[in-house]
């Protein structure tokens, strides 16, 4: 049954100007970044590996931002447009509903990832890093996006309001992104290092650094970054399970 919801969402995503505009904006951002990195006199002096790392951060950052905004409204609009009642009156379980929406959000991430591939190939020309770069953007990006979508879905079920969900989602994304872009010299103390190891965005950027700059491409050499990302996804899944339990207890029409 979840495939029905997934297809319905995909149809809505692909056939509307507003949804497809995200892809176009993402593509323009990648174009500007890539062009500046390769042609700007100052930026082109960066080592190619550092340049790829910067591009990787932009791709993951844009992907997380677009998916967070998309996931913030994908569930809550059903409540705001009052279509949730009719959905749950049909033989659709809450799990099918959430799973269908989750697949729709991940499809949008997949589309962004596909759009980013030509840029990755052009920027990696002559470095033999194109394949590991694409593979790790897919792996790290999917884990990061999955965790954020699960988290935002849990918030959606708690709040049932696009505005509140979007604000909370963006604050969480910003809160995790800002320490991740600090230089390593600002992360020398114990507290900063603990936050850095727990922060999923920090782990994504560190793993990309490990792969692209230090050329440690095997999964065994990156497990210390991938495990915290998996833990983040599991925690977000746990929170979503709790939110779904609370939702079922309260019912579709919540008595305030």
């Amino acid at each position, binding site marked *: 049954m979840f495939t029905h919801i997934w297809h319905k969402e995909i149809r809505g995503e692909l056939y509307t100007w507003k949804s497809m505009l995200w892809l*176009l904006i993402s593509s*323009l951002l*990648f174009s500007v970044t*890539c062009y500046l990195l*390769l042609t700007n006199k100052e930026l082109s002096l960066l080592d*190619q590996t550092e340049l790829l790392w910067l591009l990787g951060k932009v791709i993951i950052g844009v992907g997380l931002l677009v998916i967070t905004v998309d996931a913030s409204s994908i569930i809550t609009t059903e409540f705001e447009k009052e279509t949730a009642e009719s959905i749950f009156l049909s033989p659709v379980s809450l799990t099918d509903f959430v799973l269908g929406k989750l697949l729709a959000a991940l499809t949008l991430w997949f589309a962004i990832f596909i*759009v980013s591939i*030509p840029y990755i190939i052009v920027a990696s020309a002559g470095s033999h890093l194109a394949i590991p770069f694409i593979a790790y953007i897919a792996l790290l990006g999917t884990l990061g996006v999955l965790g954020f979508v699960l988290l935002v879905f849990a918030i959606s079920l708690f709040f049932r309001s696009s505005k509140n969900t979007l604000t909370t989602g963006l604050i969480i994304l910003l809160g995790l992104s800002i320490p991740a872009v600090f230089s390593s010299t600002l992360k020398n103390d114990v507290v900063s290092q603990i936050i850095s190891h727990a922060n999923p965005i920090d782990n994504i950027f560190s793993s990309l650094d490990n792969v692209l700059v230090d050329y440690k491409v095997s999964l065994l050499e990156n497990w210390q970054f991938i495990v915290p990302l998996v833990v983040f996804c599991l925690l977000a899944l746990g929170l979503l399970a709790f939110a779904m339990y609370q939702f079922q207890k309260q019912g579709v029409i919540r008595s305030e």
Partner: protein
Amino acid sequence: MNMAKTLITTCAGIIFLSFAFVAYAQAVPPPLSIQILSQNTLDGVAGDYVTVKGQITNAGTTTLNDVTTYLSLVDTGTKLPVDLEDWSAEKGLYIGSIDAKQTLPLSWQIHFVKAGTYSLIIVAEAGSNEVPQVSTITHFNVAPKKNLNPGQVLPVALGTPIVLLCILFVLSYRRKIEE
């Protein structure tokens, strides 16, 4: 006659003394000297780092205080001095005191920022000396960076959004037909 003799003798004396003074000045080396140990010409591509190595020696018989060394870089194409802001993290090295006959190593890491030809000298000055000492010239030949082909990026940077825009129009058109 005697006067002429005296005049000639005096002139000869002055000339002799001048020669003796010049000979003495040439025989006594300046107390500070800088030798470049790295190659005279360093080649690279913009973005590369090279290390210029040298040594500073106090050839005198007394300790020299407040010794400072610094770099001077000139763009030989434009004949203008270059701001070392991006070229070297350490524009100068304060050495302090050098004992008599002591030799100390000097090392600068230079970042090739812009393509061109450059000449670099190391200047050393001691607090007690009015005249600084300079090293021999190190020449830099910096080639432009071509590790990435910018020609490939333009079709992708322009083409991808255009292709997406076309897909967007096609999907929108199909949606209109279906409705």
